[in-house]
């Protein structure tokens, strides 16, 4: 690719428009300098940190002055590590459940939200509220809320006869707590995205559906759902990436426990990197993690955009 025209100030460009001959289009490769700030930014925010991790991942570091090159050894050991594999499957299951619950639920909420009147604002505020709370605060809220002794939620569940809910001891309870917390926190995002898309459908579409005698389901399936494709693609990507990398909330609520029931990839990674200071395995782990998110997102995106054609 060559840059044929320099980027110029539009006002100046308009000013010298009249006497510019078509055959004399000025070429000035100094214009490349204008992308320099971006290159610098990306270098410092992404490229250098990433290369540092790559550097770690191929070495065994004993101390700053004592290190040996080990090639792909760490990658091999990380992929064979049962703890990593367990965390990977757990995270995958968690993301799948998050998507299966949050996407339909979010769309359902968006469809049910009012289309006009003062209730619109009220509904928007109520729905958007969880999104405004910082991650670790969400974790703290749920850590207390789900407690069987003093938490309102946990206590209420324990009032059901025969139920003994305790997320600090029971791995299923812990899993459910983290899942419900994520649904509570992030379904509103899906709902708001879907609501925005639904609002953009012109009224005559619904009127035509009435005239055609379409049921509520047929109206949803034939008019609303097709219009949601774009935002749902974004919602699925965002929710996949976010849930696959979830860290703060389970760290605050369960700390990955009980046992390793809620020990997701990110929790395990930070344990290896920060807790044990195993920089080599952690580096290899990070790169693989990064790669998985990239690939899955790419596959999602391709499938979702292709199916619309």
């Amino acid at each position: 690719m060559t840059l044929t025209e320099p980027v110029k100030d539009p006002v100046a460009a308009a000013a010298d428009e009249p006497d510019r001959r078509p055959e004399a289009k000025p070429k000035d490769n100094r214009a490349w300098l204008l992308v320099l700030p971006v290159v610098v930014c990306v270098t410092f925010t992404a490229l250098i940190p990433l290369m540092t991790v790559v550097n770690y991942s191929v070495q065994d570091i004993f101390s700053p002055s004592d290190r040996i090159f080990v090639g792909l050894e760490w990658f091999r050991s990380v992929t064979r590590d049962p703890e990593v594999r367990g965390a990977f499957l757990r995270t995958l299951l968690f993301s799948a459940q998050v998507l299966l619950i949050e996407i339909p639920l979010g769309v359902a909420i968006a469809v049910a939200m009012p289309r006009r009147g003062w209730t619109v604002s009220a509904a928007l505020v109520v729905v958007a509220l969880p999104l405004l709370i910082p991650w670790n605060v969400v974790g703290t809220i749920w850590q207390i809320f789900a407690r069987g002794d003093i938490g309102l939620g946990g206590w209420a569940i324990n009032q059901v006869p025969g139920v003994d809910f305790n997320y600090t001891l029971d791995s299923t309870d812990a899993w459910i707590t983290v899942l419900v917390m994520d649904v509570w926190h992030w379904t509103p995002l899906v709902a708001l995205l879907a609501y925005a898309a639904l609002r953009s459908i012109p009224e005559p579409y619904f009127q035509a559906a009435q005239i055609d005698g379409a049921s509520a389901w047929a109206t949803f399936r034939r008019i609303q759902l097709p219009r949601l494709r774009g935002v749902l693609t974004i919602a699925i990507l965002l929710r996949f990436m976010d849930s696959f990398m979830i860290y703060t909330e389970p760290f605050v609520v369960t700390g990955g426990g009980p046992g390793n029931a809620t020990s997701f990839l990110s929790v395990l990674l930070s344990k290896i990197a920060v807790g044990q200071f195993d920089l080599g395995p952690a580096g290899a782990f990070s790169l693989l993690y990064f790669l998985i998110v990239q690939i899955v997102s790419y596959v999602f995106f391709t499938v979702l955009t292709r199916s619309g054609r």
Partner: protein
Amino acid sequence: MADIRLEDVGHSYDGGRTWAVRPMTWTWRSGRAYALLGPSGCGKTTLLNIMSGLITPTTGRVWFGEREVTSVPTAGRNIAQVFQFPVLYEEMSVYDNLAFPLRNRRYPKDEVDRRVRAVSRMLGLDAHLGRRSRRLDPGRQQIVSLGRGLVRSDVAAVLLDEPLTVVDPAVRWTLRSTLKEIHRDTGHTLVYVTHDQTEALTFADEVVVLKDGAIVQAGEPAELFLSPAHEFVGHFIGSPGMNTLPGEVADGLVRVGGQVVGRVDEPLPPGPVRVGVRPEFARLGDGPGSPGLPAEVTGVDRMGAYDLVHVRAAGHPLVARAEAGSPYEPGAAGFVRFTTGRVFLFRDAVRCGQVVPLNGRAG
């Protein structure tokens, strides 16, 4: 098929403070093609939506023949409605679009197929049945939207809400003749909303002119042109619209700016009136005559097929139509004569009489 009767039907969007449609009684006779003509915001679409049941009127009752349908939901009314822009189920094929209203009503499969094919033949969609509807051009999309209305049996009326707005002028012609053919072949009642007078006048058996939520005149196209019952009709229909001059009635004579135009045809209480005459019925000539006014030419628009002569008649601007290549030059003085029987008097915008020639000086 039955008449659609509006009995004292009115609609207000703000609880009765202002009326989008003023309470009116009106019958759409079965099998006729109507044009509902009026400026933007005059209540055309509201009236249409009341008929199709998308809006329940604030007052009054709606009858389809002997059946009262005021509170019957849209789906139960068998109305076909076409909107300003094509409304399609974009993910579905043309065939499925046409079949959709029937499938919703659980018609048997072979019946669905028979009807869809019949409608597609009538609308010339046979070659496109398998295509995704959103891949069609806007004109065809609009035809598919129309087809969805026609595919049902016993359609009570086809309502068209400015259906040709989004369509290319070239395609517009074809579509309009398709509509006329459908009307001829099916005998459905058609109500065609438009703000374009040409569209209305060429399309309809009867034109209904709506203004500020009330019907000001209804009749055949020629009637609206030749004998407007309301000042608005005179202005809105015709190009350019009717001239109106402020006048005065006294002692049976009509004066404009102190000059006598003519005599009133029937006794009228004295007082101010407006004198309306179309450019087509105002002719410039040398000799005085009645009804008419002295005039001075202020300008001429050469329109090609004819000329529009702008004059000041008794101090008021007026447009007269003349043959192409007329010799008038600005500044020329003369006399503008009006065709007897085509000069009307309006009071409060409503027609209240005619101007006829003076006795003895009739010309």
